[in-house]
C-alpha cells in the first residue's frame, strides 16, 4: 500500500472524520489519495493558520483530536502560530506537514523548512518520518501523545518519498513509547494531607483552570465545592467548568477578574488549585499572591507544580480521579461566616457597566447574544478587550462551550476556531465574539465558511481601535495612542457580501437585538459590525505585576 493511503487508513483507525488542510507540491500524493477518500472529509481553508486554529477549535469543542494538514516550507511555517496556540492551552491537535524528498533534506531544497526544528519548543512531540513503513507506528504514537496526560500538539513531517513509498500495511495495537507514561493516579498520602488541610481551613477557595475541562472533572469539582462550601473561581481557560449561576461561583480571577474573586483569593487561608498553572495574568505579583493561604495543587503535569509558587501539597495526576477521592474522604464543612463575607463582596462589587444612552456597549451585545441563544451557543473569542468582556459578561453554563486563546493570546484565533467548533458540532450555534483588529487577521476564512456553509456568526465589537493596547496606552502611557487607531475604511458589511456571506450592522443600542435576531435566523455565516463605544475600557484591572488587591476601576460603578 502507498504511504499516502496508509496514512489515511491510520487516521481512520484513530477515528478522524475531518481534516483542515491546504495543498502544495510535496503533499500532492496525499491530496490525490484524499480525492477518492469517502470517510474523511477535507475542509479546504484559505490560509494554513486557519487550518491549525480550526483543528484546535474542533478539538476544544469536542474533546477529540483535531487534524490539520499543510505542504512543506511556507505551508508548514504558516501553521506555527496555530501550533503554539494549541501548545500553550494544552490542546490535542495533529499537524501533518509535507517535506521535501529525504534525499534533499538539508540542501535548502525548494520549499524546504526544518519544521521539526522550528516547532520543537512549541509541541508536545514531533516526528520526521524517515520510512514509509514507520507511518503506522508514528501515527499510533502521535494520537496517544496528543490526547493523553497533559494534551498538546504533535507535528508529523512527511517527506514526499515517504508518501509515495509502497509497503505492507498493518496498524499497531499500541503505542511503543517507553519514555512516556502519563500518571493519572494521585498519591494517596498526598491526598490524605490535602484532606487534612481542607478540614482545617477556615477560608478555602477553589481555583480551577483549563485542566478541569480537559479532565472532565466539572462534576467532581462542583461536588467538592458543595461539600466543603468553598467559593470557586476560574481562570480564563477554566470558564465553563462550573455554571455561571452556581451560588458558589465567584467568576474569573486575575488581571480582569472580579473584585470578589480577587478579594477572596487574597483573604483565603487555603487555595485548592486544580488544573491551573499560576499564570502571571492570574497571580499578578507572585510575592503578594494569596499571602495567607496554604496551597494544594492538583495537576497532571508535575512540571506545572512548584514552577511559579511554592505549594504545600502537590498532587500529580488526573483531576477527575483525585478530586473524587478527596470528595469521598473529606468531612462536610459549612464556612458560613466566610461565605457571608464573600457574598457581601459579590453584592458590593458586582461586574457592571454603564448602559445609558444610545451608544452600543460591548457588554450589552454580549449579554444579548447569551439571551437570544438561550445560553446554548458555543462561544469563541478573539483577543483583546472583546475577549475580556466575553469572559466577564457571557454567562457560560457548560464545559467546552467557551473557547479562547488564553496562553498565547492569539489575535485571529476566534474565527477559524469557530469554524472548527461548528464542524465538530453541526447543529449548534457558534458565535465568535470579535474585535475589529483581530477579525482581520484570519478574515480570509469567510470563504471557507461560505463554501462549506458553516453558519458561524461573528459579532465584531468594532471600537475602531486595537482597544486593549489603547487601554494600556491610556492608563500607562499618558494617552499617547501610538498606532492603535485602526478606524480605516473597512466596510465589514460589504466585506462579508464580497465573500458571499451575510453582512449586518448596528450603530444604536436599539438595533442590537434586531440585528442579532436576523443573524440567528439566517442559515449561513454572518458578520455583524457592532459600532460600539470607542473608548470603553475593561474593568476592573490589576496592572501587570501588581498585587491582586490593587484593582483599578473606571468611572462607571
Amino acid at each position, binding site marked *: 500500500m502507498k504511504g499516502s493511503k496508509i496514512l489515511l487508513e491510520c487516521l481512520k483507525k484513530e477515528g478522524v472524520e475531518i481534516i483542515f488542510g491546504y495543498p502544495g507540491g510535496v503533499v500532492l500524493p496525499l491530496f490525490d489519495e484524499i480525492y477518492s477518500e469517502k470517510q474523511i472529509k477535507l475542509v479546504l481553508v484559505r490560509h494554513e493558520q486557519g487550518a491549525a486554529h480550526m483543528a484546535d477549535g474542533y478539538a476544544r469543542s469536542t474533546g477529540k483530536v483535531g487534524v490539520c494538514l499543510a505542504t512543506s516550507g511556507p505551508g508548514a511555517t504558516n501553521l506555527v502560530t496555530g501550533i503554539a496556540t494549541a501548545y500553550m492551552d494544552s490542546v490535542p491537535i495533529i499537524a501533518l506537514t509535507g517535506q521535501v524528498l529525504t534525499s534533499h533534506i538539508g540542501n535548502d531544497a525548494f520549499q524546504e523548512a526544518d519544521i*521539526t*526544528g522550528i516547532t*520543537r*519548543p512549541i509541541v*508536545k*512531540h514531533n516526528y*520526521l518520518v524517515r520510512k514509509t513503513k514507520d507511518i503506522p507506528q508514528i501515527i499510533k504514537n502521535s494520537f496517544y*501523545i496528543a490526547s493523553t496526560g497533559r494534551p498538546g500538539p504533535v507535528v508529523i513531517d512527511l517527506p514526499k518519498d515517504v508518501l509515495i513509498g509502497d509497503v505492507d500495511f498493518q496498524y499497531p495495537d499500541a503505542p511503543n*513509547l*517507553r*519514555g*512516556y507514561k502519563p500518571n493519572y493516579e494521585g498519591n494517596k498520602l498526598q491526598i490524605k494531607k490535602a484532606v487534612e488541610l481542607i478540614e482545617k481551613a477556615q477560608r478555602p477557595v477553589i481555583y480551577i483552570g483549563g485542566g478541569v475541562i480537559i479532565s472532565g472533572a466539572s462534576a467532581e469539582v462542583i461536588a467538592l465545592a458543595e461539600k466543603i462550601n468553598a467559593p470557586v473561581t476560574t481562570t480564563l481557560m477554566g470558564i465553563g467548568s462550573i455554571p455561571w449561576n452556581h451560588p458558589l461561583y465567584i467568576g474569573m480571577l486575575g488581571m480582569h477578574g472580579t473584585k470578589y474573586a480577587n478579594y477572596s483569593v487574597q483573604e483565603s487561608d487555603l487555595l485548592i488549585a486544580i488544573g491551573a498553572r499560576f499564570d502571571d495574568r492570574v497571580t499578578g505579583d507572585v510575592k503578594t499572591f494569596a499571602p495567607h493561604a496554604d496551597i494544594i495543587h492538583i495537576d497532571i*503535569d*508535575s*512540571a506545572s507544580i*512548584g*514552577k511559579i509558587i511554592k505549594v504545600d501539597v502537590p498532587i500529580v495526576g488526573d483531576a477527575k480521579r483525585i478530586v473524587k477521592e478527596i470528595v469521598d474522604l473529606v468531612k462536610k464543612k459549612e464556612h458560613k461566616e466566610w461565605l457571608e463575607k464573600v457574598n457581601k463582596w459579590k453584592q458590593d462589587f458586582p461586574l457592571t457597566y454603564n448602559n445609558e444612552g444610545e451608544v452600543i456597549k460591548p457588554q450589552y451585545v454580549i449579554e444579548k447574544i447569551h439571551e437570544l441563544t438561550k445560553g446554548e451557543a458555543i462561544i469563541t473569542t478573539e483577543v483583546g478587550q472583546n475577549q475580556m468582556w466575553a469572559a466577564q459578561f457571557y454567562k457560560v453554563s457548560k464545559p467546552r462551550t467557551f473557547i479562547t486563546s488564553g496562553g498565547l493570546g492569539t489575535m485571529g484565533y476566534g474565527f477559524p476556531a469557530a469554524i472548527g467548533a461548528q464542524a465538530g458540532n453541526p447543529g449548534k450555534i457558534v458565535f465568535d465574539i470579535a474585535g475589529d483588529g483581530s477579525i482581520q487577521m484570519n478574515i480570509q476564512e469567510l470563504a471557507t465558511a461560505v463554501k462549506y456553509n458553516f453558519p458561524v456568526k461573528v459579532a465584531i465589537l468594532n471600537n475602531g481601535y486595537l482597544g486593549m493596547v489603547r487601554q494600556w496606552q491610556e492608563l500607562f502611557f499618558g494617552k499617547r495612542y501610538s498606532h492603535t487607531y485602526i478606524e480605516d475604511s473597512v466596510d465589514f458589511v460589504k466585506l462579508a457580501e464580497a465573500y458571499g456571506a451575510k453582512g449586518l450592522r448596528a450603530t444604536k443600542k436599539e438595533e442590537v437585538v434586531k440585528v442579532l435576531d436576523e443573524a440567528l435566523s439566517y442559515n449561513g455565516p454572518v458578520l455583524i459590525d457592532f459600532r460600539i463605544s470607542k473608548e470603553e475600557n475593561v474593568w476592573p484591572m490589576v496592572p501587570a505585576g501588581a498585587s491582586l488587591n490593587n484593582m483599578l476601576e473606571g468611572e462607571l460603578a
Partner: protein
Amino acid sequence: MSDKRKIIGVIVENQPGVLARIAGLFSSRNFNIESLAVGETEDPTTSRMTIVARGDEIVLEQIEKQLNKLIDVIKVIDMTDEDYVERELALIKINTEGKDKTEIMHYINIFKGKVMDTSHDTIMVEITGNDERINSFLNIMKDFGIKEMVRTGPVALIREKKKRD
C-alpha cells in the same frame, strides 16, 4: 536562594534530534547548563547523557521535571545526593618555554597525568578525575601557562549498593 550544582544522568532514545531537544529545552527555559556529555550505553537503542547544571532549588527541580516531560527521555537519574563515581577527562597543553620542566613533571605525576605529546616548548597532558581534581591541576598549571585546553565534561554512574552477608 543559593545556587547548587546538580549532576543528572539522562537515558534517552538513541534517535536523531534528541540532543537538539535537550539543548533546546535548556535554552528555551533559561536553564544554566555547565556541561553535557553524551554517548552510547550497554543498550544500543539508548544513549546516556550526563548533565551538570547549576541553579537554585526551584530551577533544579524544574530541570528534572522538564527533562522527564520529553517523550524521548526514558529516565532521569538525579545523582547529586547519591554515592556516585564521577570522571572527566581533560587535555591540557602547557607552555614550558623558559620553565622548570621537572617541576611541571612533578605535578603531572602527583595528579597521575599522562604526557600525550611534547614539543620543545609545550607538553600535552591527559588528566582524568572529578571536577575538583581537574580544577586543582588547572590552577597549578595556570602559573606555568596553559596554551590550550579541552574538557569532556563529567560522566557519572551511581555505585552499586554493597551486599552484606
